[in-house]
């Protein structure tokens, strides 16, 4: 029994200590084919005239884009790529382009009250013709404000080909509650991976992006069904981009 406990403890320590972080250094050198494949995926997204997400693994940055232009950047505080040790296989991006398949729940919408016809109040003296005092003070609080408050700060998105993206909206990444949440999150991931492995399912690789809570909420509200996510690479020779091979 002591042997079992000792073995489990050893495994635990190995798992915890083996957080497989390579030293952050210069971006990897990309060959022509890799770069062209990523650019090809981005071009296809740009040609769709739909909103899409661009993840730059080297910056790292997450952008909301359309037609090749960035509409909004979601600053990423830290970004990790992982795959359960139970999954086996190499750590690599499965594809250059992904499609969001997570079900986006319809938000709970406030009901707009029907006004009761009332004797017209006097409009302000500087009001334009047609000014209706009953419309000057909307009875409901704008739903978008409520939606923003209600939007989650921690959520997970599933893309196809199999890729999980976890968004962690954390005010202080280094504080104790944040660390506890992440530890809990990873434990759950590990158990899920174990469960999937036991059931013969593929354990998808996972991207964990830590952003500020308000950015996480905004990102959640910016999502659209079947939205694309593409990986960004800088064109060869562009400033700040990876060095061509």
């Amino acid at each position: 029994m002591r042997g079992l406990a000792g073995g489990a403890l050893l495994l635990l320590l190995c798992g915890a200590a083996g957080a497989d972080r390579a030293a952050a250094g210069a971006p990897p050198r990309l060959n022509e084919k890799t770069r062209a494949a990523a650019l090809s995926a981005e071009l296809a997204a740009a040609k769709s005239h739909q909103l899409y997400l661009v993840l730059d693994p080297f910056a790292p940055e997450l952008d909301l884009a359309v037609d090749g232009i960035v509409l909004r950047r979601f600053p990423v505080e830290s970004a990790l790529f992982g795959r359960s040790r139970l999954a086996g296989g190499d750590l690599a991006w499965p594809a250059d382009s992904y499609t969001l398949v997570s079900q986006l729940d319809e938000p709970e919408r406030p009901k707009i009250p029907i006004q009761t016809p009332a004797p017209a109040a006097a409009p302000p003296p500087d009001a334009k013709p047609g000014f209706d005092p009953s419309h000057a003070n909307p009875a409901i609080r704008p739903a978008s404000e409520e939606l923003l408050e209600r939007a989650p700060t921690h959520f997970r998105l599933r893309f196809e080909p199999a890729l999980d993206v976890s968004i962690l909206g954390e005010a202080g990444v280094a504080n104790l509650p944040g660390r506890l949440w992440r530890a809990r999150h990873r434990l759950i991931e590990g158990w899920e991976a174990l469960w999937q492995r036991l059931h013969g399912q593929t354990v998808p690789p996972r991207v964990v992006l830590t952003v500020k809570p308000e950015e996480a909420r905004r990102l959640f509200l910016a999502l659209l069904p079947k939205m694309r996510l593409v990986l960004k690479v800088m064109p060869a020779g562009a400033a700040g981009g990876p060095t061509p091979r």
Partner: protein
Amino acid sequence: MRPPDPPAVSSFDARPPGATPLVFRTGAAARVRFRFPWKVLLYGFGGLLLAVLAAGLAGGFGYRELSTVPLPRGAAVRHGEAPRLALQIAGQEPHGIHIAVDTIANRLYLMKGTEVLREAVCSTGTGGVLTDPATGRRWVFETPRGTHRVLQKIKNPVWNKPDWAFVEDGVPIPKDSAERVDTYSLGDYALNLGDGYLIHGTLYQRLLGRSVTHGCVRLGDEDLEAVWKAAAIGTRVYIY
């Protein structure tokens, strides 16, 4: 002579002399006292708990920095194609005037390429829902996100009030179409984005910056005039 009685405890010892004898009890003494294996259970449960925890940790802690993960190696591209693709992506960008509307921040940006020509406070859809108690019809007042184009530029627009405008005001829906005409509410200019959605003016300037509309984008008078003059039919409008 009768042999002596066997001892109460029979013993059998085939081992060398001096070894501890094996004793077999008979009768009532043979009943083994059952003791619940608390220790086994405790250690077993503890071990299982540790194993599950370890499995979770081993499965959950296997991360690299994003930038160190190799990108997929493309196969179906020709040599020298990357620069051409990069140019094609750049070619997708609208180089002329375009409009971007941030529905959460209630801001409209008049853009030329990547340059912001004008930033305006606007009002977008409430996101609320209105239900007609008489018919059960339902309207969601949301500004549609995505890519749109200016289909029509209208000066002195006239609003042909739809049914929901009357339902919301709690008044009967008129049968005479003339009663639907409103010549004031949309301001001096409007850009038609299709499906009944417009960028137009407002009588309620105080509400600009808040999400209070029925899905249209409202602008203040000066901003509306500037945007209306800058935009052409076909100008792209990105709502996000």
